[in-house]
């Protein structure tokens, strides 16, 4: 009895801290609101880039970090989302906002397709090789579908507005992106803290035991990859608006490694990590943008370093600072 009482108090103190922290956590995006006022055009662009990589990283992390699958199909989801948005805007004249959901849905459909090998029992390195081939095949498709995508020369994405509110201004994009990024984080957070998130982690840890608990593992593979495809596809539509030009080379192996760097450096299986990774990794290449090759060099070294010294990424450092950064219930890091 006394033992339990002590455990209770030990548990509740950080819990209270976490609750108060959580409020701060959700107030943080509000604090970001006046940010564009203090930044120049270019800095605003980088900020938008960060916000765009939030859903991209979050979606990737769900598959790799939570579901535990070595699926390299993220760039395919990203590219398909971007091209869906770009084509709907350029060919059908839709405004950007009307392409966000279709881009997400295209990504989700690709996610369902990418779950087929997993359902057939392909795992680990084999799955990685296969999804890598899938991504490269998609890139080839963008190149060859010249009538639709402009081929290897790429396509221009027309400027757009939101009911008359100009979306060609970086500061305006910022507010739209902020809403989307926060929405994706909140929705994914709810998913991961529910029985769905537990099912993902259970499958990652021990698929047989998960099934023995009545978890329909196949259905969760599809759900995990589809959700990933959905949010990454939305990220793709943000890319189309942000960069204004789509070319197949933007969705190659280098992009894949950048996205990997986001979740590895941020922290695998951690929502906080995805966000932190997006901030750190997106700003790095911009610093080195005048030196071709440096960005790859730095990413490579960063990932090597993280694997060797900080396998749970920057999120694990943050989790030690304040419990609000913890993704899970338990106390030890």
């Amino acid at each position, binding site marked *: 009895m006394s033992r339990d009482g002590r455990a209770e108090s030990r548990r509740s103190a950080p819990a209270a801290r976490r609750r108060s922290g959580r409020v701060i956590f959700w107030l943080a995006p509000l604090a970001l609101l006046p940010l564009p006022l203090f930044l120049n055009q270019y800095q605003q662009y980088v900020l938008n880039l960060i916000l765009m990589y939030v859903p991209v990283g979050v979606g990737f992390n769900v598959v790799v970090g939570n579901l535990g699958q070595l699926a390299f199909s993220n760039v395919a989801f990203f590219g398909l989302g971007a091209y869906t948005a770009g084509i709907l805007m350029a060919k059908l004249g839709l405004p950007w906002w009307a392409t966000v959901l279709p881009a997400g849905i295209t990504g989700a459909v690709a996610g369902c397709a990418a779950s087929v090998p997993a359902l057939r029992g392909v795992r680990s390195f084999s799955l990685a090789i296969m999804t890598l081939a899938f991504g*490269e095949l998609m890139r080839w498709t963008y190149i060859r579908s010249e009538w639709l995508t402009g081929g290897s020369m790429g396509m221009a994405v027309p400027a757009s507005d939101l009911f008359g509110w100009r979306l060609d201004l970086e500061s305006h994009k910022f507010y739209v992106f902020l809403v989307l990024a926060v929405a994706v984080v909140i929705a994914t957070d709810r998913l991961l803290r529910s029985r769905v998130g537990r099912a993902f982690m259970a499958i990652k840890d021990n698929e047989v035991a998960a099934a023995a608990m009545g978890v329909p593992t196949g259905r969760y593979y599809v759900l995990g990859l589809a959700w990933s495809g959905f949010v990454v596809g939305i990220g793709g539509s943000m890319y189309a608006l942000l960069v204004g030009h789509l070319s197949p080379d933007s969705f190659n192996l280098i992009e894949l490694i950048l996205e990997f760097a986001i979740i590895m450096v941020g922290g695998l299986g951690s929502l906080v990590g995805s966000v932190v990774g997006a901030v750190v990794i997106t700003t790095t290449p911009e610093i080195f943008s005048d030196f071709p090759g440096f960005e790859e060099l730095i990413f490579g070294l960063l990932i090597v370093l993280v694997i060797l010294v900080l396998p749970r990424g920057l999120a694990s450092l943050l989790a030690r600072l304040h419990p609000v950064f913890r993704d899970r219930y338990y106390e030890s890091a």
Partner: protein
Amino acid sequence: MLMMMPQLVVSGVSTGMLYAVVALSMTVVYKATTVVNFGHGDLVMAGAYAAFVFTAGIGLPFVPALVLALGALFLFGQLMQRALIEPILAGPHLSLAMMALAVGNVLRGAARVEWGNETLMLARPYPQTSFLLGPIVLTMDDIVISAVVLLLLLALFVVFHLSPLGKVVQAVFQTQRGAALVGINVRAFHGTMWGTGAALGAAGGALLALNTALTPDMGAWTLVRGFAAMTLGGFGSLYGAVVGGLLLGIMEKLLGFYVSTAFIDITAYVVTIVVLLVRPQGLFGRAAGRSV
């Protein structure tokens, strides 16, 4: 139309030889440590650049330059395994895949820093002639590439089957723990095999650079084709890698000519996806590890 068949097969074999050596180099690494090296394409690229540095940079003749390039990559592969792969070998496959990708990224970045995106060529150490064998045109490139690859295969066969090292190789391929029990230094062996894999990859890279431009990005192209050949032959099968490479080369040419030119590009992707879905063990091998 059928007249073209022999010609297509011959040039397919020549390309296939390159795929075979790349797939073989990846298989050596996989067999020794059951790690699929996602950075292997960049080792191939590094080998090509090393050959370029030793010929165009230092001015050595081709053959000594090739030997030096192979030696350099052997050391690099060994170092990579000892310093970066061995410490996490027991860890999740994700870390292993990422580590290899990251090392590849560093190599690619370094190549880009040094040579940017300029396209370099490796000077052929022989005249670019061709021979007519009946209806078939045989280029000097075809002959040299095939000859070098066959020599490498022969050397590998001798090492794995006839030399004292071969006994070690076979023992460790059978069972790692058993090999450790009988006093084989498994760690050193892992390093040697990674070195061998990297050196073989470098040979592939140098040969590739004889008739293709050198770019820092050539690794991805190579990696995908190496994977396809390896998958087709079956993971972990040395013979499978060679047969898979040759088959892939021939299929690219035949499908590219008779069906659609698109197949020159996409055969590798399609083969990888279809084989893993339909027959994951490939032609000769066992299915790759199933746990992450």
